[in-house]
């Protein structure tokens, strides 16, 4: 977090109280359910930025806008299912990630590349002893993330890019914390393999 953010947070709110988050989420969702039209716009403004980045990296730049629109329409229609058991952010991310994964499955099906698991192990399998070719740039990493299998890409984006804890990711993806950890590590290894020396072309 930047010094400006720390300055703002430090001066405005000296401490965070997690209990307030769920309370505020429930209040906002209740307003949405009650037909408060401004409330849903407020919900959108709070979460659209981060969810757009998720959609951008899961579905690609061309699909990101449509995905974001669909995610919020889904959220609006499913708000009755939000019980406050998790934060609204976790609930929205779970919904968003499921929708992005469905989108990818649909795209794979169109391309005739249906697999049981979205984690196609043949893609960029980690190569032992292949260090990075040089200083890592954001653009190189961005491109490589786009080539990750969907399952570990999802975990990697949520943990390393968005900064969620494994406990939260486990809820979002419907997996165990251990699976979240292993998927993130697998993604990092695959990225290293993609970005490192390429001793040979794999067929």
């Amino acid at each position: 977090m930047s010094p400006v953010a720390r300055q703002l947070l430090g001066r405005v709110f000296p401490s965070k109280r997690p209990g307030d988050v769920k309370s505020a989420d429930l209040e906002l969702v209740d307003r949405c359910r009650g037909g408060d039209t401004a409330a849903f716009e407020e919900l959108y403004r709070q979460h659209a930025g981060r969810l757009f980045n998720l959609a951008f990296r899961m579905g690609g730049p061309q699909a990101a806008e449509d995905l974001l629109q669909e995610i919020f329409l889904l959220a609006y229609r499913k708000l009755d299912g939000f019980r406050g058991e998790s934060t609204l952010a976790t609930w929205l991310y779970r919904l968003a990630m499921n929708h992005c994964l469905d989108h990818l499955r649909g795209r794979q099906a169109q391309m005739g590349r249906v697999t049981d698991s979205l984690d196609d192990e043949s893609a960029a399998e980690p190569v032992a002893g292949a260090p990075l070719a040089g200083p890592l740039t954001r653009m190189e990493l961005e491109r490589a993330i786009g080539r990750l299998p969907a399952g570990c890409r999802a975990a990697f984006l949520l943990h390393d890019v968005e900064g969620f804890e494994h406990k939260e990711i486990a809820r979002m993806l419907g997996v165990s914390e251990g699976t979240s950890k292993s998927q993130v590590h697998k993604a990092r290894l695959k990225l290293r393999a993609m970005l490192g020396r390429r001793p040979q072309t794999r067929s």
Partner: protein
Amino acid sequence: MSCPYESQIADYLEGTLGGPEAGRVDAHLAGCESCSSLVADLRAIRATARVLERHAPPPEVWNRVAAQIAADGRGVRSHAWPTFRGFAAAAMIVLMLGAGAWFAWERQGEPAAATAANAAPPASASAEPSARRTDSVDAQLQQAEQQYADTIQGLDAIRQAGSTALDPDTAAVLQANLTVIDKAIGESRAALQSEPSSSLAQDSLFGALQSKVSLLQDTVALINEMRKGNPEGTARIVSGMNQ
């Protein structure tokens, strides 16, 4: 993986290994080039991932969501954003995706494309197709800029009406940022007057305008959160403002 310690590297990087175990991995890394290279690379990937570019959703997305919900019969207002058409819409999408360019330009302190001294006159009406195209582009630019101006005016009015919800320090920081952006808008306008066909100057102006829209939008959201006394919501917005 050949080295037995490699299986512990995931936990080592997560910081979840116990003290003695972490110490053993530390000692191993000091003597194992393969593992130390792996750890360094994975740390570099993790660090770079945290600073990847943040993309902003185009305002049209909310309009489409609101319109769809209204069509579903549970009306949601769509007043916050004007309807951007044609160039304005395309410009906002493209410029927001490349928003970093303006900030980089500003940081590097490069001159805003020469001086305004020799401002080119506006393109005059001409029978030549290229001149007509220029007129058309100019008109679209003016229209897009006017739409930004209208949006900014609306958001600024909301901000000023709710400014008492902000503590003085926060308001001062936000005002300082608005001042920087206003300065950039002024410089970009001067550059565009000097070189009307410069895509860099156009990008800079619309990037700066978009930055102002985003900051005002975040400020309004911040005011709402602070009025509600929601520290987590405020923290999210402040964090987003710094991304």
